[in-house]
């Protein structure tokens, strides 16, 4: 869909006095977000979003889609009001077409297609995982890092090589966020999964200590969490102190993904690492990544909580980079891609970030 044929050699420039202004739409999982960015300071012009929070149990895709449909209009209006712009003022509409949940993705894609055709704006396809890396490179200023990408549905170690972000390691089964959420739900300490900026497992781990007995699985550059989940649940149900189980579960899960990140740094020779994705807001994980980097004499950065979770800003930001490199898509081609792997996406702008777009 996004082929070299759609790329032009000349940079696209806008009617905004050399600035590029892009509106981005995120709807891959539980958050419907609209962000607006400019290639000139202050870069982020708007960041509006609504998050679907289940009252009980996990996330049901159809319910999320219904929720997104009901809030899409007001989120869009809120973003435009924050930026003091109308859709006519933007140079392009970026949309996360995947990966994610089909019904949820469809809402964002529908809104994006409608805006692009109604206002005759170029439509820019954005991969959600690429966007998490781009926002990390933008806010940390680390241009060529190993990326530790941890979220509810994703856990991978990524690094740029030969035109694309490559997956150096990932979970062989469930994602880190999923591990923590499922454990919390099964032992009855969630929902709510996060309150006061802390995950239920983190709260439970306070006052806990490390105990032996949970499996630590790193296979080469991959981790595996499903055995850990089963063992932790068994341990919790057999009468071990829940705070100890939570502490140990978190210790094992976080240490193993950080170890994979460390392996990737050793393998690729990179001297910086960024932590991104919804679970990046976790302070314990961030401090582990920092300690790992410092012990290697490497630099490190973590995406601040506001931009770590799913948001429209990172989609707009990535869309701006893509648009500047002539990557657009016809409205009729803009179909969702639930399993769109990060390593299928060309990133010709690398190692540029949004801050470089105005200088040309």
């Amino acid at each position: 869909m996004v082929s070299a044929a759609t790329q032009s050699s000349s940079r696209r420039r806008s009617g905004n006095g050399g600035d590029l202004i892009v509106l981005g739409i995120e709807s891959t999982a539980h958050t419907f977000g609209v962000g607006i960015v400019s290639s000139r300071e202050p870069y982020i012009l708007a960041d509006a979003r609504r998050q679907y929070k289940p009252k009980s149990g996990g996330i049901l895709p159809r319910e999320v889609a219904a929720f997104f449909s009901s809030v899409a209009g007001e989120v869009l209006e809120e973003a435009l009001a924050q930026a003091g712009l109308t859709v006519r003022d933007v140079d392009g509409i970026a949309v996360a077409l995947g990966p994610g949940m089909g019904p949820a993705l469809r809402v964002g894609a529908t809104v994006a297609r409608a805006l692009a055709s109604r206002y005759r704006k170029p439509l820019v396809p954005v991969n959600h995982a690429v966007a998490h890396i781009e926002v990390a490179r933008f806010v940390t200023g680390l241009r060529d890092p190993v990326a530790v990408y941890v979220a509810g549905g994703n856990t991978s170690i990524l690094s740029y090589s030969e035109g694309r972000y490559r997956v150096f390691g990932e979970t062989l089964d469930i994602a880190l966020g999923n591990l923590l959420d499922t454990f919390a739900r099964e032992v009855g300490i969630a929902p709510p999964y996060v309150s006061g900026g802390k995950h239920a497992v983190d709260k439970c781990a306070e006052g806990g200590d490390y105990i032996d007995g949970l499996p630590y699985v790193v296979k080469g550059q991959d981790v595996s969490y499903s055995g850990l989940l089963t063992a932790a649940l068994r341990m919790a149900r057999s009468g071990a102190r829940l705070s100890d189980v939570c502490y140990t579960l978190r210790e094992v899960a976080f240490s193993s993904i950080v170890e994979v990140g460390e392996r990737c740094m050793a393998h690729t020779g990179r001297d910086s690492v960024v932590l991104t994705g919804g679970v990046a807001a976790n302070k314990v994980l961030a401090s582990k990544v920092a300690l790992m980097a410092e012990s290697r004499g490497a630099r490190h950065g973590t995406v601040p909580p506001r931009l770590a979770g799913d948001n429209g800003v990172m989609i707009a930001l990535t869309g701006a980079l893509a648009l500047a490199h002539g990557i657009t898509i016809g409205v009729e081609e803009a179909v969702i891609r639930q399993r769109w792997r990060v390593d299928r996406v060309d990133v010709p702008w690398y190692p540029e970030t949004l801050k470089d777009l105005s200088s040309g």
Partner: protein
Amino acid sequence: MVSRNPEGLVEWVRSLPLASRGAESEIRVGAWMGIDAVFKLRIPKAYMHPRLDYVLRMSRTRREAKLLAKAHSLGARVPLLLGVFPSIGLIIMERIRGKVLRDAIREGSYRAEDLRMAGEVLGRLHDGWIAHGDPTTSNYIVSGERVYLIDFGLADKATSVEDLAVDIHLFRRSVESTHAVQARDILEHFLDGYLEAAPGLGERVIERAEEIRLRGRYVEERRRTVWAG
């Protein structure tokens, strides 16, 4: 010079010249009982709980030494084990001099035969039901006419075809991620050598490795339906 006190031994090893630093260990070089040797010392990880760190370092050291010795007895080209001290995370082994396969590939100085031999080493291990755990191109050393597999840090006894297939999957991924352009050629020669050393079993392992690849999250081949947005 070397006392029986493990802490003293750590001190002495750390005085040797550092050859490289891996993700979890320091590799130092020196002489051990007159043999040109590599000293692999697992260093404590600051980001781990001390107890988890100690348990992992000790068990990995012990397991690595055991499997390295077993691999050697299977006729696979691996360094000879010279000594092991689990409580301090130290393994001493024969030093293999040569060029890391990853660098040989990057420089274009590798031969098809090197890759065939790389596959052969893994095939021999698998034929003895040992999974290496990290068979990337950075863990192969081209030494003259021979190719050695090093770093048994993540090796384990295999109990299923799946365990072995993960090795093939990891090798394929390391090739695709670091040598994307030459990947097809590299894999072809590698698998030729692998199948020669592990006849019968090897085919089942490769088949299973393909299944693992398709199982990976968001792999497009797994998708049966193209959803229209």
